[in-house]
């Protein structure tokens, strides 16, 4: 029988070692797997490469990971955050490496990794310093820049509901990077609000099929009010 649910966040993140490359879902707080990030902090691993859209904000779980000095490099599109100086201080002191990627290129590089695509040409970034030194090709009269896939050892994502096979559905804009990250990592660990019986999720609306999910925890969150999760 397949049952991908584990009952402890620490157990869920077991296997993550120093130096791992970790995708973390979320666009700001929505979709951020807070319990898994906290378990990762407790695990004490460091020298991590983190792939996330942001670099933490306002004391959230990701900013605590940065603040604790666990991250060697971040690959993201927007590390600036109002009211948060954790990343800024590390960056300006030269204590963290930043690979800045336009947001759509970030999402598509992650998608490409999960889909077995060895790279792609995109119009985004052409003629800018973020495309400097990258291969350019003229296709149908327009310039495109070559971008490579982004793989990871682990993906930590958050979804709304799961069944024991690891089929996932999301809620509203918390979906964001979850589905593409789930496919792009060697091991995908989800944090869901609720677990439901197999068969309860309508097969037509499952967003992430369980094939992409290795294990998950259920937190029992009811994320209808921001105060609950902050």
């Amino acid at each position, binding site marked *: 029988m397949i049952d991908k649910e584990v009952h402890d966040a620490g157990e869920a993140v077991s296997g993550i070692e120093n130096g791992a490359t970790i995708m973390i879902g979320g*666009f*700001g*707080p*929505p*979709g951020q797997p807070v319990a898994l990030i906290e378990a990762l902090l407790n695990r004490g691993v460091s020298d991590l490469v983190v792939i996330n*859209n942001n670099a933490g*904000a306002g004391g959230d779980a990701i900013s605590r990971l940065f603040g604790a000095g666990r991250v060697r490099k971040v690959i993201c*599109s*927007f*590390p*600036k955050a109002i009211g948060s100086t954790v*990343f*800024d201080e590390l*960056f*300006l002191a030269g204590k963290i490496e*930043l690979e*800045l*990627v*336009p*947001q*759509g*290129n*970030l*999402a*598509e590089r*992650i*998608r490409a990794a999960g889909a077995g695509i060895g790279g792609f040409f*995109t*119009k*985004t*970034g*052409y*003629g*800018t*310093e*973020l495309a400097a030194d990258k291969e350019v090709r003229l296709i149908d009269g327009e310039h495109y820049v070559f971008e490579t896939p982004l793989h990871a050892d682990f993906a930590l994502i958050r979804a*709304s509901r799961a069944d024991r096979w690891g089929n996932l559905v*999301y*809620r*509203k*804009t*918390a*979906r*964001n*990077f*979850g*589905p*593409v990250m789930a496919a792009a990592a060697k091991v995908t660990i989800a944090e869901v609000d609720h677990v439901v019986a197999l068969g309860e999720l309508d097969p037509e609306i499952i*967003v992430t099929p369980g094939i992409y999910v290795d294990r998950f925890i259920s937190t029992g969150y009811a*994320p*209808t*009010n*921001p105060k*609950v*999760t*902050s």
Partner: protein
Amino acid sequence: MRLSRHQIAARVAKDIPDGAYVNLGIGVPTLVADYLPEDREIILHTENGMLGMGGAALPGQEDADLTNAGKVYVTEEIGASYFHHADSFAMMRGGHIDFCVMGAYQVSARGDLANWRTNSTTSIPGVGGAMDLAAGAKHVYVVMDLFSKTGESKLVQNCSYPLTGAECVERIYTDVAVFDVIPAGVRILEIFDDLDAGQLSTLVGFTLIDATTSATVRN
């Protein structure tokens, strides 16, 4: 009279047609949503994965899973849809978004856009979705004050700040005037301040094409 931020937003809103799919950037562009005419059905896209975005959530009615690109709690309109980030940016890059409205540090006479970093060594670079919108939206509109706080024109012959996209801006709405970028140069469509086209060219620092009509020149 120069326009206020809200007046500029209202002026942009007037030009968004019925049925358009629109992405609004952070800052003054977000205000455009408040002025979209009630009799038009305009669908707002937010890069974090939603079409049919509604206005800001009322205090106490925020949903922790529903924000806009500026991480402000918003609402959903009837008919809204959600999708993941790669789909959201495929929508932009693939030319499906009709209009995007963004702020800018500088726009050049060729329509080059600079809005993601300055040359300051202590600033934290952050690009977000700006380059994707610049490359992919059908019509790229910019909203900005025409002059910086120190009085320099932000409409320039060549951008001194790093580019977000080359030759992508089609129209520039400012507190002083509205401009179109066309192959022959920059054309003035409307002037709000007490200036004529010649005086405006002098202030901007290069020759602008005058396409104002008597109805749109206020002096």
